[in-house]
């Protein structure tokens, strides 16, 4: 049976999937700009990001309409809310790609400089995690989403590697401080990409299993967490 709400949910889902692929593409482009030292690519990222912003507005509008006209409940409601939250995270990924492209512009002025291996590894990891998160959404696959949550720590470690090496590089050769700082900035932005991918995976778990796993480990470790757990 097709319900009136089904095509509405379907449309939202298509919109967020398109927005997600665009975010993946723009992240890829910003990283290509870094690794190929391509200033022209870096400049394109800025334009592409505007399209992501436009898509976020379209999703906001569609979400408000869906809530107003369909008054969704249960898993329908969780889907609509998750899509709204995902749109926010995907839009942020676009902004982060733009930041990376800014670093790419600066780094392109120094075509001879070495790029750290750690940055490549981190870039691959972050991209892979974003891809997994978006895939887990497109298939409503809670298992895959849970794997994304586990992977987040790996990215943190990679980021720390890059930062440590960059700081060492600065003390070895202060003349290259500007480049090393950009490596740190790119690493930081990539780590944030993975954070947003984690949020997306958490949204998928909210949709599929009706569990809110946000801040789960942090809150579980809080000694005050034992109280106030009832349903008041």
């Amino acid at each position: 049976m097709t319900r009136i709400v089904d095509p509405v949910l379907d449309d939202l889902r298509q919109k967020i999937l398109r927005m997600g692929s665009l975010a993946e593409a723009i992240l890829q482009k910003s990283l290509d700009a870094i690794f190929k030292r391509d200033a022209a690519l870096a400049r394109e990222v800025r334009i592409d990001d505007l399209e992501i912003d436009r898509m976020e507005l379209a999703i906001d509008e569609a979400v408000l309409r869906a809530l107003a006209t369909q008054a969704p409940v249960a898993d329908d409601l969780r889907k609509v809310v998750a899509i709204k939250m995902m749109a926010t995270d995907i839009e942020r990924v676009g902004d982060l790609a733009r930041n990376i492209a800014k670093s790419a512009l600066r780094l392109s002025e120094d075509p001879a400089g070495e790029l750290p291996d750690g940055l490549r590894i981190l870039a691959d990891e972050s991209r892979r995690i974003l891809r997994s998160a978006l895939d887990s959404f497109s298939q409503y696959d809670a298992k895959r989403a849970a794997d994304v949550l586990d992977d987040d720590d790996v990215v943190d470690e990679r980021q720390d590697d890059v930062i440590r090496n960059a700081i060492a590089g600065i003390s070895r050769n202060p003349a290259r401080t500007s480049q090393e700082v950009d490596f740190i900035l790119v690493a930081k932005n990539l780590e944030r990409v993975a954070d947003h991918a984690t949020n997306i995976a958490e949204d998928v778990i909210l949709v599929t299993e009706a569990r809110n796993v946000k801040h789960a480990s942090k809150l579980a470790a809080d000694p005050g967490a034992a109280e106030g757990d009832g349903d008041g």
Partner: protein
Amino acid sequence: MTTISRPAERSQLYLTKITTRDLNVWYGEKQALFSVNLDIERNRVTSLIGPSGCGKSTYLRCLNRMNDVIEGCRVEGKIALDGDDVHGEDVDPVQLRARVGMVFQKPNPFPKSVWENVAYGPRIHGLATGRAELDEIVTTSLERAGLFAEVKDRLDDPGTGLSGGQQQRLCIARAIAVQPDVILMDEPCSALDPIATARIEELMEELRARYTIVIVTHSMQQAARVSQRTAFFHLGAVVEEGETGKLFTDPREERTRDYITGRFG
């Protein structure tokens, strides 16, 4: 050693207004309710939802023994109000129906004045001595039903001359006038426009400070808005009962989900 009731027991005692245990109802040969167990919490609005014919009205009518007057209707099981069996030998159904008042889908004021509509119950139940006291009950009841300001200059006009929404609030005032504990409402807004509906919904929120309210509604949004607890009935049984916010975001039972999201087919 003194025994102190455990906190869980105390809060049970405090929270539960009506307990229903193993309630079965038949109309002739046909069984309409199957082993219903349901607790209605004090000072809360409880919504009963479910497809047409699932037994919501039948259950509601059990709570004040309105089924007694339906020919061929047989009720088995236990319903306790504040711990007392409503089917107890010493229970007078007329008194019970004052304590557990009812408001129907279609506003049904008597073909009498506004004042008479409200004063009738307290008078026959002997709740007032003299006109002054009755006047006071009428005023307070109309005020609590959020109607007094609109009708204070028309108390002698016929109740049937009011708008649908006003008539429904008049019926609520009539129920309130006999000092009930519980107010049952069977689809009270289904004949009302959105504004009149909103007024009744606000009223429920105010009234629950004093009364326990059970409402049958076909509007999922209304159930979600007005009630703290929701029970989903299907085929004469309670499928799921729980906190309203939880039931509408993450129902425990698949059948509940299918019903509230319109997947039933």
